[in-house]
């Protein structure tokens, strides 16, 4: 694809994604669990979600196979659950519960033309993959399968790593519907 970095919008994306990519290539703070990038206007609000989150903080230490806490609890078979492996950096309503899938927007919505790249460990092969997180935009909240993610989520004055922003910039509508997560390829 031709870079379209001459527009004002592109410069924003560039600035965002550059920062994100730098972190993703490190064995640091953020790369452990993949990037928690702007994939959704996510929000830790439903009591169910809060409890689920709380439930992931066991008193004792669980057996940890991977550096990523998310990956240690992840599965690769059911994309309608919060712990599907690709969603390590996703936050919001899962498109897979709303008529779409991890890389498909539900009918009546469209993917934001921009996406963030996160990296998630596939627990089956232990390898790290790059994931393109896109919001599907154009209908109000789908309201199904709210997944709350926090790992790597930073305050919104660091927008490139904040998961509360409505990431529909450049889409035909700025109305957030759900969050998707397309597979890019091996991270390294």
């Amino acid at each position, binding site marked *: *694809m031709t*870079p*379209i*970095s001459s527009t004002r919008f*592109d410069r924003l*994306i*560039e600035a*965002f*994604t*550059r920062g994100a*990519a*730098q972190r993703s*290539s*490190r064995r640091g703070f953020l790369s452990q669990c993949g990037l928690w990038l702007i994939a959704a206007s996510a929000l830790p609000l439903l009591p169910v979600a809060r409890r689920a989150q709380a439930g992931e903080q066991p008193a004792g230490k669980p057996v940890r196979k991977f550096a990523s806490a998310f990956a240690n609890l992840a599965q690769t078979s059911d994309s309608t659950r919060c712990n599907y492996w690709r969603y390590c950096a996703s936050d919001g309503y899962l498109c897979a*519960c*709303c*008529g*779409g*899938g991890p*890389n*498909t*927007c*539900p*009918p*009546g*919505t*469209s*993917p*934001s*033309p*921009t*996406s*963030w*790249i996160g990296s998630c460990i596939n627990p089956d092969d232990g390898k790290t993959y*790059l994931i*393109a997180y*896109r919001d*599907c935009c154009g*209908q*109000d909240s*789908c*309201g*199904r399968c709210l997944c709350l993610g926090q790992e790597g989520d930073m305050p919104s004055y660091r927008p490139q790593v904040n998961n509360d922003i409505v990431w529909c910039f*450049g*889409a*035909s509508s700025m109305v957030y*519907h759900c969050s*998707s997560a*397309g*597979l*890019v*390829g091996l991270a*390294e």
Partner: protein
Amino acid sequence: MRGWFAGMSAAGVAAGALVLALPAFGADPDDLAADAKLQLAESHVTATLTPTHARRLFVLDVAFPAAEAARTYVLDGATGRIEGMFNQAYWPNFAVSPDGSELYAVDSYWEKHTRGKRSDYIVVRDARTLQVSEDIPLPAGRLLIVSKKYDFDVTPDGRYGLTYNLAPQTTVTVTDLKARKSIGTIGIPGCGLIFAQAASRFSSLCADGAIATVTFDESANGTIRRTANVFDAKNDPAFEHSGWDKHHQMLYLVTYHGKVVPVDLAGEQAVAGPSWWLTDEAERRAGWRPGGWQVCHFHSSKRRLYVLMHRGGDWTHKNSGTEVWEFEATTGRRVQRVRLPEPAQSIAVSQDDDALLYAIGDSYRIYALGLATGKLLYKTRPLGFTPQLLTVWGD
């Protein structure tokens, strides 16, 4: 820095051929290899629905606590899977075009969601993409009421959409769905609801228990023929969601107390047939009677009537039903009683041969049961805020 660019592209979405150009990084040694470009392993597409089929289920959620924000969910009725959703607005109606290609939403919007200028439309959507193809204005407005199915109907040929209004006269606005244009308004004094049985004809129920049948022309000039009273509107009114067999132009009025009055709507004037009871005397003594919101539904090719039943006293006509009773509409013979997993407000029946019974439970779960077996196929998680009405193709 310029050697790098963001992972984005034009949203060539419906084509499904989106290739993601991945960051090619610059000089920072901590970055990935410079100039690396990765293809997106998967395309990122927008799903389209399969063509409308008998087991597609539309659930209208009126969202009572945020009534400006109603929506319709599209489900695969066979599995309960959510296939999509689209927003509706304030106390909307919904219908499927007879050929299944379009969805019609009757909606009232305010410029600032709950204030400012109001505007009313029949919103036409493509049934496979859910994209809006037209907002057809309803300049005469429409009645705002907790959504009832038969405040909107479409003529069997798909030509006209008919919307009910009360402002203050009771009227029906005729919209040419093909020309995408409202063509006029017909007064139906003292009557309400719309049962569109023919290309240029609909019937309404009247406050005195009569049936008014309106035959109209292409300029929405209507001729009204009223029957004598066919039910006792004062003491035992017929449910708004009575059994409607559009295919056979038969309306099976079901009353609060459980009587059925078959009405033939084929002609310019309706003709009522002999009434019968849903219940025998013992069942009535035991308190069995119809109740709920979408109380009845009809299977057209089987000519069967389905009614939500519960035990209760007078003025329990909106109580949820614990059972669905199935009747041969032409004979009044009861075929079976189906016990529901949970009391329900609304039911519908798919119009295919191996029909499914759908119900909106009080917990806002959607249930599906096989009518041949009476077995539960699935229940969904609670859906939306206050799901209210069920629609299947051809109902």
